[in-house]
């Protein structure tokens, strides 16, 4: 710590080169980082595409039994979403098992009851355990409701009553959401996942560079060098953070690249992420990457063994993500600016805004990033002190 700075810079450069080289030479860690970074954007895009296809493109197959009792139903129920097939006979349970989404049965006395205003029954067979049941019922209700309204209207007119008397008022719904705030709903989990990527991508490297080096006894050699402790920790932090940061950059890039493939417009969501937004997102995550790296290294150093380090860090990577999701789901009001000074929460809020094309305030981003970097500096100092303790090296 007391060494002169001109030496220090050269040493630091050499040390950093060594740490980076070791980090990036570890093929397995690199592969794991890349895999996870690409996995979640791909899964998000895939599930969105699947969800929209399910809800907009799927047709409902309706089997109509006893159509001779009410042929009007066949013509009036048919629509772009509803495929009506008339069957002379069939067992509803078997038909539902055999590819129909719904079975509608018209009873024997339907027409005569209808003509004498006795409200005849229609029987709808549905398998509510099937994934398509809800959509199918909605499709049928939509058509059946229209026909019902038409008939009720005609019956009123026949009695000299204007059908609009059935509508005592008109409820006008005014939706205050914007395309970007609707996007926030679907994209809400993305900031948490990006932060998770940071943790996962740097996990293997941080364990290797701390607990791993200790077990391979190469940490001891390093500490024998005339180097200040803070430089050792800082170099390791930078190397680990580089892996985590690159992982999250990869994830952001993949996500933005996949966005045009996602049918967001069908959901009324704007694709608002800009190139500048992507760059900003990347930069925002850098201080957080440093913080995650240094905390991971410290935890791994004070663990009992390589295995113990892995376990502890696995728990660590889940904790903040769960915390963020709970915060998100419990709808804690985070609009207060001071939340932007809390690491993790701050980055989550900024990413959320940038993903839907909203602006973030520059002074608060700078202040918040600084607030993330302060614990990094403190942790590096803490780590440097810990390295001086011999007990650290014996813990195997």
């Amino acid at each position: 710590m007391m060494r002169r700075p001109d030496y220090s810079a050269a040493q630091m450069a050499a040390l950093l080169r060594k740490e980076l080289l070791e980090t990036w030479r570890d093929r397995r860690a690199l592969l794991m980082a890349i895999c996870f970074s690409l996995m979640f954007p791909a899964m998000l895009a895939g599930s969105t595409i699947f969800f929209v296809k399910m809800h907009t493109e799927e047709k409902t197959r309706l089997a109509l039994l006893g159509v001779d009792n009410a042929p009007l139903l066949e013509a009036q129920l048919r629509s772009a979403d509803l495929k009506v097939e008339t069957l002379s006979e069939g067992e509803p349970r078997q038909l539902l098992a055999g590819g129909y989404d719904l079975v509608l049965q018209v009873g024997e006395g339907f027409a005569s009851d209808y003509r004498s205003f006795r409200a005849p029954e229609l029987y709808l067979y549905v398998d509510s355990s099937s994934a398509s049941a809800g959509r199918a019922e909605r499709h049928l209700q939509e058509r059946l409701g229209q026909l019902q309204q038409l008939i009720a209207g005609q019956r009123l007119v026949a009695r000299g009553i204007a059908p609009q008397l059935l509508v005592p008022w008109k409820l006008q719904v005014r939706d205050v959401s914007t395309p970007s705030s609707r996007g926030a709903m679907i994209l809400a989990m993305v900031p948490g996942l990006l932060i998770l990527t940071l943790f996962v991508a740097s996990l293997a490297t941080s364990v290797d560079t701390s607990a791993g080096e200790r077990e391979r006894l190469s940490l001891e050699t390093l500490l024998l060098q005339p180097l200040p402790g803070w430089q050792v920790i800082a170099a390791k932090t930078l190397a680990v953070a580089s892996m985590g940061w690159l992982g999250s950059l990869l994830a952001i890039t993949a996500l933005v690249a996949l966005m045009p493939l996602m049918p967001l417009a069908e959901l009324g969501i704007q694709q608002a992420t800009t190139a500048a937004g992507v760059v900003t997102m990347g930069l925002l995550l850098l201080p957080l990457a440093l913080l995650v790296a240094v905390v991971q290294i410290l935890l791994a150093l004070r663990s009992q063994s390589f295995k113990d380090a892995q376990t502890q860090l696995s728990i660590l990577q889940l904790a903040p993500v769960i915390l963020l999701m709970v915060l998100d789901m419990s709808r804690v009001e985070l609009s207060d600016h001071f939340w932007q000074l809390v690491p993790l929460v701050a980055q989550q809020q900024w990413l959320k805004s940038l993903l839907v094309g909203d602006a973030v305030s520059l002074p608060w981003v700078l202040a918040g990033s600084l607030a993330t970097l302060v614990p990094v500096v403190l942790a590096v100092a803490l780590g440097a002190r810990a390295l001086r303790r011999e007990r650290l090296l014996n813990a195997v």
Partner: protein
Amino acid sequence: MEWMQRLLKSLILMIAATPTAVTMAQEEPTAKRCYLDGWGDSLACYRVPVGEADNREGLAVMVAPAVNSSGREPLYLLAGGPGQAASDLAPLLNAFRKINREHDIVMVDRRGAGRSGAFNCGFEREMPADLQQFSAELAECYLQHPGFAEQLNSRQAVEDLERVRRFLGHDKIALWGGSWGTRTALLYQQWYPQSLRALVLDGVAPIDTKVFLAASAAEHALQQLADDCAADSGCARFGNWRGELQQLLNDWNDTRARTFPDALTGAPTEEPMLRWALANAIRSALYDPAAAAQLPYAVDQASRGNYLPLSGLTGLFAHSSNGMAMGLTFSVACAEELNRITPEEVARDSAGTFLGSAFFDLFATGCKSWPVQAKPYSAPEPRAQPVLLISGTADPITPPVYAHTALGYLSDKQDLVVRGGGHINSRRGCIPELIAQFLDAPDVPLDQSCVADIQRPPFMVAAYGPAVTVDSQSQPQQAGGQL
């Protein structure tokens, strides 16, 4: 620590170097957030300065922004009437949701309509049934604003539209016109072809067509209803209801007018249902196939002395004058349509029709109180923009024959004809989807096969409504015909 400082500094510089993402304020004309009835999402609303003293507030312009701003041309909606406000077309956005994904949809209330200072002459809810009283009230309104009435016309509406286009910074635009809005769109195409990418015209009123001669068109729509009714097993039992309707109108007298029931209150009517009003109510029922489907039963019942169904049917249009700004209606109609129609043409058009001159007389009487100068159009010049025409074969005011005979000067047109369709078909069946496809690629011929799936709603055959089964009573008749 110097190293760290340098890193921090460079980090701060990098963040500062990306100002576009951090402060994404857009420099556009200032819009206010607003809503229109019939559409739940918020719109961007502008006030565009036009004219001088009489238009201090400016034109009301409402934009439903595209979900994705992909640079596709915006679609402007032009309302009918003349006198309807574009803002009243907001419910159409529900059908145009898919178009709205890529295209901004713009509604401009023309001067004297809707939110641009509705010139409604005090006729906000209902018009007096008595033509003379109506005429007197109209004359009084004219005398208060003769200058304003004189300047309201299609030329001005088109110029204002062009001003709005430039104000919003739009390059080329597409137009959707409905009814009279198609006239405005076709005139815009004459005067500003370079600003236009494509036209969608629903219920076409070509420049040269005298659309206020409505009796023959209404008769044709009624005849088609009668033909479709005769082909329907349930409806065919009403036999010659078309003849009964004529009898009903011929025999209409003061007593019937005064005892005609009121479909809204259930009490005896306050305003007598005069013959011309009844004929116009029947004409109105033909606009909408769902209402028209109840006409044969209602007429059949009336001929047996039960006027309730006919009253219920006319009750459907009880407040339909809402939204038409009468001052604007007469300024445009008198200057551009009524004065080019000769008495001989009226006689020829109304001869042998159920409507007679009942519709024309309303405007002819009104225009006597509204002495604006004639503003004739020049003959249309050839135009090559892609045009999509939509019409219903049973449209009582703008039948398909108008689009087929008076648009020879357009070189690139496609034609969607809805069998049995009434006035305005843009919301029905697959038409919204076809409009979206057309706007995506106006030069590609559309696959029109799905238009044939659009059916007339079921006829009312009895007090219980439509027949759910093929009616056994009329079957022997049909079988007999085949023998």
